[in-house]
């Protein structure tokens, strides 16, 4: 069976005064129908650029290489007009900051109806009715009244519900959520995640969920993509990543989450060192300068994906049969 979304060897760069930022260098992954895939990785690892490229929000001149296939169709080189047909109808997007992702001078309801009317042949009244239904669907009380209100009359959590309603307006096959809860209070975060989970079950769409929170990953996702320095370093099921991680960067990530079973909250242990220079990325493994297990070959050659098991790959030389065996890792952080 072919995948709903397939990203292959994606490369995106941005010219800046300081040189060319290689934001995404070689990213490949796939998303299946009805699946929730999480993308994790530290700040600047290229998560947002990757998904915005899929969404057609990155100018074509910045996309240097790669393919994106959606529903079996190549979409990276679609005309702008064809891409606009896809955006908001087949693929919806939820942004990080609900406080700024709604137009402050347009009524909430109109912002939802606008997308509906763009993609479906509905009258104004029908679109309005649909928008009100969507507001109900995302759990906004008094939807009819709320339709006529402006964003400033909504709390952060309520606004994010509206943003979700906009993204889901045309029953997309794929929902991309870029840190949808980072800007919200902890209690609200849980509500929004529950809502997304519920809607995913109800509507059956696939979700790409970007998050910094591995707890959220465990809760929501079936598969995980770990990104580092503009590349995918490990990918696998949630079980693979949490119970059998095969990349030192993933070990570091796991070590940096507080242990749930701990009585007292431990401070997060950030991974030491700084991310690679994206202006001139190293030719070897991008994690080498920070990796306690780095070998000679790591600096020389960037590791290709090693297949650990079905669907589980790790870009790390340690998985080469000739590499020395490295003993368990997370234990040190969880003693």
């Amino acid at each position, binding site marked *: 069976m072919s995948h709903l979304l397939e990203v292959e060897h994606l490369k995106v760069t941005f010219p800046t005064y300081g040189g060319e930022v290689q934001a995404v260098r070689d990213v490949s992954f796939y998303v299946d129908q009805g699946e929730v895939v999480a993308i994790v990785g530290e700040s600047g690892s290229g998560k947002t650029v990757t998904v915005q490229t899929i969404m057609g*929000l990155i100018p074509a001149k910045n996309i240097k290489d790669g393919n994106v296939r959606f529903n079996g169709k190549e979409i990276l080189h679609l005309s702008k007009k064809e891409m606009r*047909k896809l*955006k*908001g109808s087949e693929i919806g997007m939820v942004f990080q900051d609900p406080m700024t*992702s709604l*137009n*402050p001078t347009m009524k909430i309801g109109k912002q939802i109806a606008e*997308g509906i009317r763009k993609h479906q042949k509905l009258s104004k009244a029908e679109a309005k009715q649909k928008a009100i239904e969507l507001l109900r669907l995302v759990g906004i009380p008094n939807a009819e009244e709320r339709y006529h209100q*402006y964003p400033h009359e909504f709390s952060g959590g309520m606004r994010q519900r509206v943003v979700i309603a906009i993204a889901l307006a045309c029953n997309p096959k794929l929902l991309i959520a870029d840190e949808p809860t980072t800007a919200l209070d902890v209690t609200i975060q849980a509500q929004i995640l529950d809502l997304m989970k519920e809607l995913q079950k109800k509507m059956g769409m696939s979700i790409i969920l970007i998050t910094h929170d591995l707890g959220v990953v465990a809760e929501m996702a079936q598969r995980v993509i770990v990104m580092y320095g503009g590349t995918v370093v490990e990918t696998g099921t949630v079980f693979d990543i949490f119970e059998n991680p095969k990349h030192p960067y993933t070990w570091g990530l796991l070590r940096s989450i507080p242990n749930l079973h701990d009585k007292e909250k431990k401070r997060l242990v950030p991974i030491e060192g700084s991310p690679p220079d994206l202006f001139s990325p190293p030719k070897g493994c991008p994690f080498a300068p920070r990796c306690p297990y780095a070998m000679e070959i790591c600096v020389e050659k960037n590791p290709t994906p090693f297949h650990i098991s079905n669907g589980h790959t790790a870009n790390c030389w340690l998985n080469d049969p000739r590499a020395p065996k490295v003993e368990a890792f997370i234990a040190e952080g969880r003693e």
Partner: protein
Amino acid sequence: MYIVKRLLTMIVTIWLIATLTFIIMKSIPGDPFASDANVLPEEVLQNIRAKYNLDKPLPVQYVLYMKNLLTFDLGPSIQSETRDVNTLIADGFPVSAVLGLQSLVIALLFGILLGIIAALNHNRLLDRLAMFLAIIGISVPSFILAPLLIKYFAVEWKLLPVASWGTWAHSILPSIALATTPMAVIARFMRSSMLEVMQQNYIKTAEAKGLSPATIVIKHGIRNAILPVITFIGPLFAVLITGTFVIEKIFAIPGLGKYFVDSIFNRDYPVILGTTVFFSTILVITLFLVDISYRLIDPRIKLTSNKGD
């Protein structure tokens, strides 16, 4: 409630301006009859002074003036035998208002348009060109631009009348001369406002809906970018109304600005006071209207200051 409060503030403001003008004017040395002093006999002068209440002590003059002001009577002019200040304003203001409003419309329309074009072509040729024009527009004062316009459009190409007032054609050159600088200021302001708005996250949201670039620019871009420009209209109106002095002088237009300048040279107290009070009233009302319209356009601002009930 809010509107009542604003109206009261407006009245107090106008009263303060009238009082201040009165005080400043009386503290400037000079006499409206100075040039005639050696010609007219002392008794005649006395009579004239009495006619304009100039013989009374200052506080009495002040009270008398304020009393008249309350009945919208701005008193007689000293220079003009036939027309009192009210008539002067009634004759001159419509002319100035047409000139000012026409310039305001030109400045807003073309300034906003130029700003949008520049922003949408950020750092490309059209942007550079628009901003080059804007810099010129800002740095060339109207009293230099006006003679240039006259030289080419009126004298050399004979497209428009040289000066004076009458038909609409007469108003074109002075309106353009008056509008150029504010238009350039608005263009630059609109450009940066538009650039900022197009960077906002809600534009990305609109893009993610699959809307066309035109819809995004018009519905989500311009409306938000134009809000700060509206706050400009009040002060701009003031600039245009007061800016008419020079233009009215150059083009020999019988507007209020011309009377005002003449009255200052002639120490025509009632005219100075009257026009100042009139100008400030216009200004205060404009600011009020702009405030109201701003609140109508921007839903985040409410007309009522008391929230929740």
